[in-house]
């Protein structure tokens, strides 16, 4: 628990996050229009999305499945009966004048997410609920001096609103929550989690209190579109609230906007008045009844989730918790690792995947699917290390070559003559030469300078262009130097 020291004492942050996640589906929640990103304005809009007179909603079965899948991935209760309600308010990007959402009876109830924090610590954060609702269209305010332009392509796309319990106590925890939630959604294939594209957005609810005291008044910062900004917004809002409270003021319950570029937040003018959404069950839709067997079927088809995969990597592969955590952060990466590790030393595989492979990926900006070195090739390289054909050091050279021109490891070793020298007579010959040629250093060693051994090893390496088997070199040197 990170407490903030203010002028008049310590303060505790109470943070809740509401995440709006766009559901991966071909068509919208209640209309058959496409959900694809980036099309011409109003070209992915059906008459239903445009709220023409007489239009009616029809629910997308796959979206329901995705919501159930997500609920199961959050270890949450699936409500077999849920109700769609209308949330009534006026805005240019809301053509119906109401959003079809869920209020009193959401499709998913309480669940949990485990946060992975610094130093391998974990913490459980509660999920309050998950419900389905329509996304709104997009307003563009900067194309005309006196007009705003409305594009309804996004209007009606299915959103899952995932509400956490106010269990987080620091910006770090909030970041860990979003990262974990994103990973889970991506594992399940129910949301791509691309905050920069707007397919995942976070609303931050924050209040401050003295430790042990009841909850304070909270503010809501809406539509923050990066994890970094969420953390910044939290720090900022916490300080803003502390200042007000320490000066004896009261926190106004309000909605705020965070400007990530400027690093400032402000109150949203349009939301100044309290909204009365006048929720009531949508009379164009009946209650949604789910078949328990159908839900069980979805559960049976769930992929292995990150927490379970991490635990398995630690148990079955003996990986350190941190490494396992890095590998499971992405489902494809974890799969990549497992392919490389199959039939090989998992720790070696983990080191190479996390270190060299990820390093190369990051540097080149490629991703797992477009990368030149695939799992099979990397595995081939590790085999050469394992059977002593090359040393770990040479392997790094080979890896660079592999990455550059996509060749197989053994082909590179052959063509460049990089095979490790493990012939003891050859090594002994070299060592004799070096000892003979460097009496001074021999003296130093005999005089008690252990460290000079490294110099001898270096000389042997130089003489062999790094191909000498380091273990063997050490062995021979010790033997010869005494």
């Amino acid at each position, binding site marked *: 628990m990170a407490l903030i020291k203010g002028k008049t004492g310590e303060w505790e942050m109470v943070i809740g996050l509401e995440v709006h996640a766009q559901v991966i589906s071909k068509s919208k929640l209640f209309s058959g229009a496409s959900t694809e990103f980036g099309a*011409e304005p109003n070209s992915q809009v059906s008459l239903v999305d445009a709220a023409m007179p007489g239009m009616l909603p029809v629910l997308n079965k*796959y979206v329901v499945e995705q919501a159930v899948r997500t609920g199961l991935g959050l270890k949450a209760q699936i409500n077999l009966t849920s109700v769609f309600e209308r949330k009534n308010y006026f805005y240019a990007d809301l053509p119906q004048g109401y959003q079809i959402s869920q209020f009193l009876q959401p499709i998913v109830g309480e669940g949990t997410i485990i946060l992975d924090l610094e130093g391998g610590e974990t913490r459980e954060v509660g999920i309050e609920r998950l419900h389905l609702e329509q996304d709104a269209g997009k307003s563009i305010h900067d194309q005309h001096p006196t007009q705003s332009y409305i594009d309804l392509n996004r209007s009606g796309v299915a959103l899952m609103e995932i509400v956490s319990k106010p269990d987080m106590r620091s910006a770090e925890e909030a970041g860990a929550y979003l990262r974990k939630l994103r990973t889970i959604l991506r594992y399940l294939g129910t949301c791509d989690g691309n905050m920069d594209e707007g397919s995942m957005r976070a609303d931050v609810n924050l209040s401050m209190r003295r430790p042990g005291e009841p909850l304070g008044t909270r503010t809501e910062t809406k539509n923050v579109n990066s994890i970094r900004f969420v953390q910044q917004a939290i720090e900022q809002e916490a300080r803003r609230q502390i200042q007000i409270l320490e000066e004896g003021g009261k926190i106004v319950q309000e909605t705020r906007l965070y400007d990530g570029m400027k690093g400032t937040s402000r109150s949203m003018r349009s939301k100044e008045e309290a909204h009365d959404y006048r929720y009531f069950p949508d009379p164009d839709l009946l*209650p949604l009844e789910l078949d328990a067997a159908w839900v069980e079927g979805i559960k049976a088809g769930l992929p292995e989730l990150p927490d379970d995969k991490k635990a398995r990597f630690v148990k079955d592969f003996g990986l350190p918790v941190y490494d396992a955590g890095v590998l499971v952060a992405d489902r494809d990466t974890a799969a990549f690792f497992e392919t490389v590790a199959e039939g090989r030393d998992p720790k070696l595989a983990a080191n190479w995947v996390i270190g060299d492979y990820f390093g190369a990926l990051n540097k080149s900006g490629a991703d797992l699917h477009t990368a030149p070195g695939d799992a099979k090739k990397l595995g081939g390289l590790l085999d050469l290390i394992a059977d002593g054909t090359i040393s770990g050091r040479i392997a790094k050279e080979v890896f660079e070559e592999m990455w550059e021109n996509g060749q197989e490891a053994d082909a590179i070793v052959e063509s460049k003559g990089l095979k490790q020298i493990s012939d003891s007579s050859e090594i002994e010959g070299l060592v004799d030469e070096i000892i003979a040629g460097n009496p001074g250093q021999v003296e130093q060693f005999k005089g008690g300078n252990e460290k000079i051994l490294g110099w001898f090893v270096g000389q042997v390496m130089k003489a062999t262009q790094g191909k000498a088997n380091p273990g063997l070199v050490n062995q021979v040197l010790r033997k010869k130097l005494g």
Partner: protein
Amino acid sequence: MSVDKETVAKIARLARVRVDESHKEALAKELSNILGWIEQLSELDTDGVEPMTSVVSMTLPLREDKVTDGGYPDKVTANAPEAAHGFYAVPKVVE
């Protein structure tokens, strides 16, 4: 249940309907009358009665996830009082 001018103003605002000041008093009276009339429902004991969700006895139909609609931006904006470059145009909104 009595409704006053202020309440009429508040509801009109919620419903985004402009009501002339001169009209508010008369509306308040009308609405109060109507509300007074529907007030008789409170006489009925409805404890334990389930609110009606729908008169049709069937389950909510579900649709296959296929793209079967959209792709006609001209139709969508055909009746718009103001459109520009394929968008609907409205008075500028300042956040």
